[in-house]
């Protein structure tokens, strides 16, 4: 049971580390790093689905019989690109946030947003 599934368990463990970082850290950059870890772990899971024991990369050559499945590879190529696109957008937002709030900590940013609403900017919610 564990023996034949060990790769899945390991990828799941990695996913959870990533997810924990995303939620528990208040630093915006750390959140994005956590998100990357989470995504990469999911990529590993997909790729492990295509692997066949004794197989080779799905590039057809003379004299090879067993190939790993190409479809998960294609999906993950797409997903990696999506991941880096998200990271780029997220980082651009981080830079702008730092420029306007002078902080990278979510709590501090919220604090500053509320405090200047009381004084100058009268816009927003009363919660």
């Amino acid at each position, binding site marked *: 049971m564990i023996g034949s599934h060990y790769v899945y368990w390991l990828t799941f463990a990695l996913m959870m580390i990533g997810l924990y970082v995303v939620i528990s850290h*208040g630093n915006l950059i750390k959140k994005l790093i956590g998100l990357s870890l989470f995504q990469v772990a999911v*990529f590993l899971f997909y790729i492990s689905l295509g692997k066949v024991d004794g197989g080779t990369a799905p590039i057809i050559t003379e004299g090879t019989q067993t190939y790993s499945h190409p479809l998960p590879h294609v999906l993950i190529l797409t997903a990696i*690109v999506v991941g880096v696109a998200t990271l780029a957008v997220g980082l651009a937002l981080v830079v702008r946030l730092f420029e306007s709030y002078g902080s990278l900590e979510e709590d501090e940013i919220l604090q500053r947003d509320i405090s200047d609403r009381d004084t100058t900017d009268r816009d927003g919610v009363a919660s």
Partner: protein
Amino acid sequence: MTAFVLVNISLFAILGATALAITRMRALYEATMLTALFSLVTGSLFVLLDAVDVAFTEAAVGVGISTVLLLGVLSLTRSREAVTPRRRRLPAALVVLFTGGTLGYAAQDLPPFGSATTPVRDHPVTETYLYQSQQDMGIPNTVTSVLASYRGLDTLGELVVVFTAGVTVLLLLGPLTRRNRPVKRDLVLADYRVLRVVSGVLMPFILLFALYVLFHGDYGAGGGFQAGVIFASGFVLYGLVFGLDRVQQVLPQRVLWVLIPLGLLLFMGLGVATVLLGGSFLDYDTLRPDDPAAGQRLGILLVETAIGLTVATVMTSVFFSFTGRGASR
């Protein structure tokens, strides 16, 4: 326990340790370098799992682009993380418990890893992708066939995502938001002769290698996306060493902005052309009705070129946007 399993597990152990170290580390430069290491090890695992194309991309993206972007942002902002308040831990732990629990539950009925008779293997598309593709396109690298033809729409979507990221970064950081003042030359890496000479010598090779990767995608690992990233990395290196001004003389931003949408338009235009030729969207058979396989190869080549073009220009433009931000501050 075969050697394969042992290597696998040890790589996973390194990954786990790296990930845990990242969570505990409050110095963000170090965390970034560890993230690059994480990607590198993941890349090795991908190779072990026979996903060479994915490994190539992960190396180019995770170790290359992501790291450069993260470092760029750190240099613009602050590189020290504040202590995480304890009250954030409980919700995180709950979510992780719930998610992990569900995953663990799922794992019990997943097909065994590496088995030759999993549903994934047994599905009829496997035959098509691995063997029928040799008649349909005659391209040895089946990942390329599936990527650019069988599931060409996903790839178009992927390119649209890259384009979206390029547009977004431009909207948020581009020279649209602030006027670029001339860079104050404090210390430019080009003052180091070794760096200057080496990067000058490397540049043509990097670009040549990118072209090789682009056109070699049919036979081995590689393709438009990886080529685009490598191409961009050439300009990134040039920009890092000689400064933003110099590289923008070589590749003005105006040209970039024209090239970014052009790649996407090429891809979509190809799809429209196949429709006008009487086929379905992205049906490359119609490009050469007398020899569908050749038509497929032509279509795939055009698609890879389009991807390479947009990816290279978007990545370069994103890098310019981040570094230009620093220059104008």
